[in-house]
């Protein structure tokens, strides 16, 4: 029998602490959509997505109503388009992005991920075409997200691609300059990208994934913060225990929703991604949660240690709650999407270098960070290279989603709206790394990749 206390605790999680299911993401394989004609390939892609996902939004809404659980986003991830379009006789992949956009709109989802390529060891011709098409593709669509895997612990870092992506990010910013470089908010580069991630902008359906699958991303920094408020002054062992319990409950909600969605849609359940995903709303911030550990402002000394412990405890609690945990699973630290991060960055307490240190122990990387528009492509590539090294050499996923906002500089602010939030422009070290980036080639895989 469930007690009144448990019922009231649950009510508060949803009503006051912003607990929600952040996304139900349907992964759809497009492997069988290959064709030599662009039109034929696009038609197959559109038809298949709409056929598989036409009930996704309605199903999400029905589950939300049954359990009184907010389900914020319904999304679609697909096979990397560089694979699907490889057989097509064209050098411009923008039509594929437009097709994904059209299919997303028909299904009523708010993002589709998979305008992607996996180039950690080198480019195919198709990978090159896709990467060169990214700026135009993101400028001419609304809901398409693009991700490129540049590095992995097994293969090392493709520094040619790191160099190219600096230029592509700059060009994407220029083509969407009228919208404060919004295109860059839909573009992320990875080391060790997970193939079952339900979160945008990095969601795609990896080549080893099934025909169709349901992956669910949960949220809930507010719930964990509230739990920590009840153990103020207690030692850190108690804090870890408290986080684990909260993460367990949050993950169980995700699993319930995922299993029910899978059953109703007749699609296998893949994974729960138990990430703490913040939003710009007050009370839904990972930075404020870190401050609850006893830090005056996020970014001060102790922040990395607190984040490491948070990330680990969230995983331990979540693992107990579901046998199929995957994706990114940990704490996200996007700047523009987190009210506390925004405040810490604006006050000068949180700097880019500290964020880089934090990405060594969080679940992803340098995320949604606005930088001056005059930052060079090589400097952007240098930032990416450092982040790829952290992921590759520490055997974890890392990512970079930077927004060089044309015409803006340190002291300015940029508004993206909605879940993407707003951000102060952060200062970037201007000393040149151009000669390093221009060397190109591959950084060899680290010694601990040799595990056979």
């Amino acid at each position, binding site marked *: 029998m*469930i007690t009144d206390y448990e019922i*009231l605790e*649950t*009510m508060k999680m949803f009503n006051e602490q912003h607990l929600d299911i952040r996304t139900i993401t349907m992964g759809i394989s497009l492997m069988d959509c290959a064709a030599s004609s662009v039109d034929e390939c696009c038609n197959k892609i559109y038809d298949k997505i709409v056929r598989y996902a036409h009930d996704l939004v309605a199903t999400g809404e*029905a589950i939300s109503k049954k359990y009184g*659980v907010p389900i914020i986003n319904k999304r679609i991830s697909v096979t990397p388009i560089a694979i699907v379009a490889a057989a097509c006789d064209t050098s411009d992949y923008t039509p594929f992005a437009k097709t994904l956009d059209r299919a997303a709109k028909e299904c009523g989802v708010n993002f589709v991920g998979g305008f992607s390529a996996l180039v950690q060891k080198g480019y195919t011709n198709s990978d090159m075409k896709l990467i060169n098409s990214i700026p135009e593709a993101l400028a001419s669509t609304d809901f398409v997200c693009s991700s490129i895997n540049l590095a992995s612990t097994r293969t090392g870092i493709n520094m040619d691609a790191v160099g190219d992506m600096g230029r592509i990010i700059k060009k994407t910013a220029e083509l969407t300059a009228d919208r404060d470089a919004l295109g860059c908010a839909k573009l992320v580069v990875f080391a060790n990208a997970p193939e079952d991630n339900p979160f945008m902008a990095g969601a795609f359906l990896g080549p080893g994934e099934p025909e169709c699958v349901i992956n669910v991303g949960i949220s809930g920094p507010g719930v964990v913060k509230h739990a920590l408020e009840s153990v103020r002054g207690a030692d850190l062992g108690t804090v870890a225990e408290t986080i684990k319990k909260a993460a367990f409950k949050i993950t169980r*909600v995700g699993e319930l929703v995922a299993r029910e969605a899978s059953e109703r849609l007749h699609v296998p359940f893949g994974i729960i991604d138990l990430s703490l995903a913040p939003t710009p709303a007050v009370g839904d911030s990972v930075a404020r949660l870190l401050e609850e550990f006893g830090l005056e402002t996020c970014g001060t000394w102790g922040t990395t240690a607190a984040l490491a412990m948070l990330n680990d405890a969230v995983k331990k609690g979540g693992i107990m709650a579901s046998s199929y945990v995957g994706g990114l699973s940990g704490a996200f630290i996007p700047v523009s999407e987190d009210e506390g991060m925004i405040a810490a960055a604006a006050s000068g307490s949180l700097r880019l270098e500290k964020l880089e240190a934090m990405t060594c122990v969080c679940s992803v990387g340098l995320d949604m960070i606005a930088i001056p528009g005059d930052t060079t492509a090589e400097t952007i590539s240098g930032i990416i290279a450092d982040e790829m090294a952290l992921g590759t050499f520490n055997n974890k996923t890392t990512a970079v989603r930077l927004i060089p906002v044309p015409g803006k500089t340190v002291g300015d602010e940029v508004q993206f709206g909605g879940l993407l939030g707003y951000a102060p422009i952060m200062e970037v070290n201007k000393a040149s790394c151009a000669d390093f980036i221009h060397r190109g080639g591959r950084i060899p895989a680290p010694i601990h990749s040799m595990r056979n």
Partner: protein
Amino acid sequence: MDSNKNTAVISVIGKDRVGIIAGVATLLSQNDININDISQTILDGIFTMIMMVDLKDNVIENSDIVEKLNALGEELGVTITIQHTDLFDRMHRI
């Protein structure tokens, strides 16, 4: 799902006034929903009522019970939510 019971938890939170229980109970009986258990407390003047109900053949998402409860909540000046019991079992029991 885990259980075969089609039961739900209805919670009512707000300022106490005459007719809350009567209002909710009447609405439920009109919609063929049976009340299995009911408990209420007043904490710091905040009225809190929890009902365990048997939905019988009702399916929450296919009926308009959520909308009706919301409308009644507005009329009574309280917040009323209905959630399938499976949610609580999953969250609080291993």
